[in-house]
């Protein structure tokens, strides 16, 4: 199974092509083909999970080939502890989101084709180990996202789509310049050529003198490149103050796309920082982490929570809660403790499942009531008990209830970060109060209290919806009790990565 990662990445692309060849008006056929196409990477992901060597920090399932020899651009894919969790998450959420997209009736073929293209792009980003390939997938994923929001979105879809697109593209431009700077200043000792190979870039001995000690714009070169890359990734996370595209994109995107956006796309930002900023520019990371990651992370956590509390649109509330929860990832990785960095990546995974649940749950209610105004409901628990059960699991997971998955990662992040920055951590820990506030307040207004007679006959969650929610709920509970299942995967790689950066503290 040497080509397992290639299969996982390209099967969705072929699936997209296949769907475009299907006859018109066969919407259900299209949907089931999409199910089949996403099921394959999911099965492969399971195989990967069981066959992944947890004891080594290096890359596994590596596959290498020449792509554009004249620029020494290669096709290199592989996974290590940092990326495997994201690969699993992507395969899992993509599969579930096909079912969450069942209600799409407009241009079904195009929707699913674009969705599969998006799937391939996301998978590609996480498995690419050649920087050029990484960038290509990064852009590949952008385009379908733009159309998925812009065509199938809500009332302000055009504005949201273009804002998302331009914002990310701005980051891409900065990233591209950085990539090229890294390319021209990295020499593969084996061939003597410049290279986009990340594994070569990760060895500082291959960096040019300019990249190590040069000055540009009156600043040290590695710091400037670090910042350019960081801004590109920070937009994606999204880190304050680059986060305002997110509430708009989330609110306008169809449910499944919101799930993918929050569940997978946001993680690309933090993944990129770990994979590239941490591994390739460790010294600059050590210098800039406090302000760019820890301090910004705390702002994300607290400011996101405060904004969430003020929202009247449930989906916007969930969107801002993502801003808050992604702050933990930044805070954790900036601590340079094993608890912090493991907690950060675990938080990436757990936020993926919890927020996916939250958006699916918002979708359920929006499909029925056609609005998401928190004050426009009331007492739904009495007519939708099963639905409310899922809501309770997701909301309490989101507010960090011990016993559910997100608690473990948030506690690890805070514990690890305490060692590095106790004052900042104390401020961040205030969010445990705020998150309980906005989550329970929303829960109370929509699901508790007197039943709003308008919704006395609202339909309970159906089987298809339960099929998407139940696996996520099970995972949220399971990983709260047995987080080792995921911690195990990433420990070796993260601890070694942490060691690389810690040397420069």
């Amino acid at each position, binding site marked *: 199974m040497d080509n397992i990662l290639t299969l996982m990445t390209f099967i969705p692309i072929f699936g997209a092509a296949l769907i475009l060849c299907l006859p018109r008006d066969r919407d259900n056929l299209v949907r089931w083909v999409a199910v089949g196409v996403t099921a394959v990477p999911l099965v492969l992901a399971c195989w990967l999970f069981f066959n992944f060597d947890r004891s080594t920090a290096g890359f596994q399932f590596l596959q290498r080939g020449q792509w554009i020899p004249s620029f020494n651009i290669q096709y290199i894919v592989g996974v290590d502890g940092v990326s495997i969790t994201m690969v699993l998450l992507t395969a899992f959420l993509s599969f579930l989101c096909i079912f969450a997209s069942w209600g799409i009736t407009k241009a079904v073929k195009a929707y699913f084709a674009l969705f599969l293209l998006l799937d391939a792009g996301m998978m590609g980003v996480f498995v690419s180990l050649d920087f050029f390939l990484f960038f290509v997938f990064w852009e590949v994923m952008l385009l379908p996202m733009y159309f998925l929001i812009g065509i199938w979105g809500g009332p302000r879809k055009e504005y949201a789509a273009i*804002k998302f697109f331009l914002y990310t593209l701005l980051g891409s431009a900065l990233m*591209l310049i950085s990539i090229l700077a890294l390319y021209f200043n990295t020499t593969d000792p084996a061939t003597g050529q410049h290279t986009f190979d990340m594994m070569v870039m990760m060895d500082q001995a291959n960096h040019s003198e300019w990249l190590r000690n040069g000055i540009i714009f009156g600043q040290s070169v590695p710091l400037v490149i670090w910042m350019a890359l960081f801004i590109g990734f920070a937009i994606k996370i999204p880190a304050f103050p680059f986060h305002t595209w997110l509430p708009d994109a989330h609110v306008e995107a169809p449910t499944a796309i919101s799930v993918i956006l929050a569940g997978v796309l946001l993680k690309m930002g933090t993944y990129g920082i770990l994979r590239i900023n941490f591994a390739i520019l460790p010294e600059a990371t050590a210098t800039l982490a406090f302000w760019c990651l820890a301090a910004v992370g705390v702002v994300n956590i607290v400011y996101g929570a*405060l904004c969430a509390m003020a929202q009247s649109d449930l989906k916007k509330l969930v969107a801002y809660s993502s801003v808050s929860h992604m702050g933990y990832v930044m805070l954790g990785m900036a601590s340079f403790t094993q608890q912090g960095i493991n907690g950060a990546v675990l938080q990436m995974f757990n936020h993926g499942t919890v927020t996916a649940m939250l958006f699916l749950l918002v979708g359920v209610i929006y499909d029925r009531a056609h609005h998401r105004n928190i004050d426009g409901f009331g*007492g739904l628990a009495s007519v939708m*008990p099963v639905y409310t059960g899922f809501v309770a699991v997701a909301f309490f997971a989101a507010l960090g209830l011990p016993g559910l998955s997100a608690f473990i990662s948030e506690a690890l992040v805070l*514990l*690890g970060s*305490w060692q590095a920055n106790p004052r900042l951590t104390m401020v961040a820990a205030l969010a445990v109060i705020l998150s309980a506030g906005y989550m*329970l307040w929303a829960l109370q207004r929509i699901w508790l209290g007197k039943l709003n007679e308008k919704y006395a006959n609202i339909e309970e969650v159906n089987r298809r919806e339960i099929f998407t929610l139940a696996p996520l709920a099970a995972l949220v509970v399971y990983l709260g009790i047995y987080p080792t299942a995921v911690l195990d995967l990433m420990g070796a790689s993260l601890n070694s990565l942490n060691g690389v950066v810690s040397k420069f503290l």
Partner: protein
Amino acid sequence: MQDTAHAAHQAAIHTVSYLRWIPLLPLIGAAINGLGGAWIQKHLGKKVIGGIACAMPLLGFLLSLRAFFQLAGLDPAERTLLDTMFPWIHVGNLNVDVAFQVDPLTAVMILIITGVGGLIHIYSTGYMHDEPAYWRYFAYLNLFTFAMLTLVMGDNLLIMFVGWEGVGLCSYALIGFWYSEWANASAGSKAFIVNRVGDFGFMCATFLLFWSLADVGHPTLLFREIAEYGPLLEGHMFWGVSTVTLITMLMFVGATGKSAQIPLYVWLPDAMAGPTPVSALIHAATMVTAGVYMIARLNVLFGMAPATGAVIATVGAATAFFAATIGTTQFDIKKVLAYSTVSQLGFMFIAMGVGAYATGVFHLMTHAFFKACLFLGSGSVIHAMHHEQDMRKMGGLKKWMPYTYATYLISTLAIAGIPPFSGFFSKDEILWKAFSSGHQFVWFVAVCAAALTAFYMFRSVYMTFDGENRSDEHTREHLHESPFSMTVPLMVLASLAALAGFLNVPHALFGDARFDAWLAPVLEHGGGHAGGHGDAHGGGHHVEVIEYVLMVLSIAVAAAGIFVARAMYKTGSMSPDRLTGLAGGKPYRTVFNKYYVDEFYDATVIRGTLALTRVSAWFDTNIVDGIVNGAAWVVRMASAFNGLVDRYVVDGAVNGVATVTSLVGGRVRRLQTGNINAYLYVAVIAVVGMMVARMW
């Protein structure tokens, strides 16, 4: 010394594998009733639901007894049972397992939780009989039992925190059990959020403790290792203050939340919105004592922080008195008991503050018996009165409800501190420990609170059970004693309330302080900081005359409280109006309205936070996003300007030249369609192009 202690510790642990079932059984019960309860109730009936739910804590009680006797059979220094299930979080130097332990302290707690809890489960089958969501109630109640057992059985701080928050969750769910009432749902949310304020302290304390212990070479969150290595933190400083003082202060913040002390007690009176058995189990007997348990569990650390001890004793005394004053003015029988609980928890914290940990735990236990009995008694009354809780509409109920009356009276005597009922022994010991450890002012405040306790409790007895019945005709006709499922638990609890004191008769009364001795292996290796602590247990048990004087005084004070209550509410020889009318009634109204603390919090903390959230949201929409949209506008304008230049300047010049150039111009114009994607792609391609060009 350290090495020998360490060696002794290694030998002291006995690994057993049945402990896990004590918490797991109720969890299984919760899972069955929570997931399949609706089906079971419909097809098999409520009896099956109740049977499953009651069996779990009762089986747990049997296992707890087994653990207790196993411990009792061991040498006191070896009394620790451990059951490790599986690794939980192993990251870096943090190694935490899902593991349960039972030592003498935990043994007391699990016997209370499963014993009293089991009785309350049985009682609930009667009390909740007409409830449509019967299954949901019992699922929550079982889940609570699981969480509470996890809290006291966890062998490390993180597992304890799982229980700590778990009981908060169940409390939330049960306070808001009848969630269709907005007020109930609000009370639930309030309880959870206020508790989260405390959790903030708990979490920070945990982090600080872990890294401080790492500093001295022993990173750990395991209780037995904290007890062992905690003393190494002596002299360790953090932020310029003693680390241990800071840790214990933050822990105490956590305790004020869960155990309803000033300033975080406000959620508990509102928590009475839940079904009454819930008030008895969660908001009197078990959950609210979690803070007391936590301090006892970490007594090594608290013993090293006399400054924290002083704060705890002061807050405890203030809470005991303050809540007691409110208790004297309430008319809702459950509210009286709620404030009484807050007040009694204050007593427990006095004990913890002055280092008399065993005494605090002893009061925790006796309080669990008599307060559970009182709450269940009030539930029996409320049940009979068709959910009327106002004591002004009761009166004379002893005629209809003899068992309820008798058990309620016994428990009232216990809480009032009348010998030989249990409360006398536990409360009197707290007062003595406070006095003898040099906290005379705390002692004085506590004695005043004790007098008020006797007063408001007998006030509730007289208003409820004595005199003329003041209810309406319809209610009176239906007055009845509760079924056996409710009265039997009352009788058991009343017996315990009456007799439990004999478990710990002080040396001054020729007893052998057996309960203190039982807890000694857990609570005395800290080496108490407060004077009275060491004297009372160690050495020759010398008894001072002053101890008898104070004992007589506290009985006299309680008797006085009872006398006043009798004069006001039974014989009528004294009118309460004389007190309420004092100084134009203003002081009375202030107390009656709970000193307006809720209003104060609402006006400051809540409104402040809400204002901050609105400011944040405004800032986000108008400033942060405004800059983004502004930047986009600037780019659009610039490109429009560029287009004009292109059309009229560049193109104008070009037009005069050749068609080839004009063709190019046309192409450029076509690019300027306002399609920003196109611009950016052009920009990106240009950048790539430039870079590629540089290569050659």
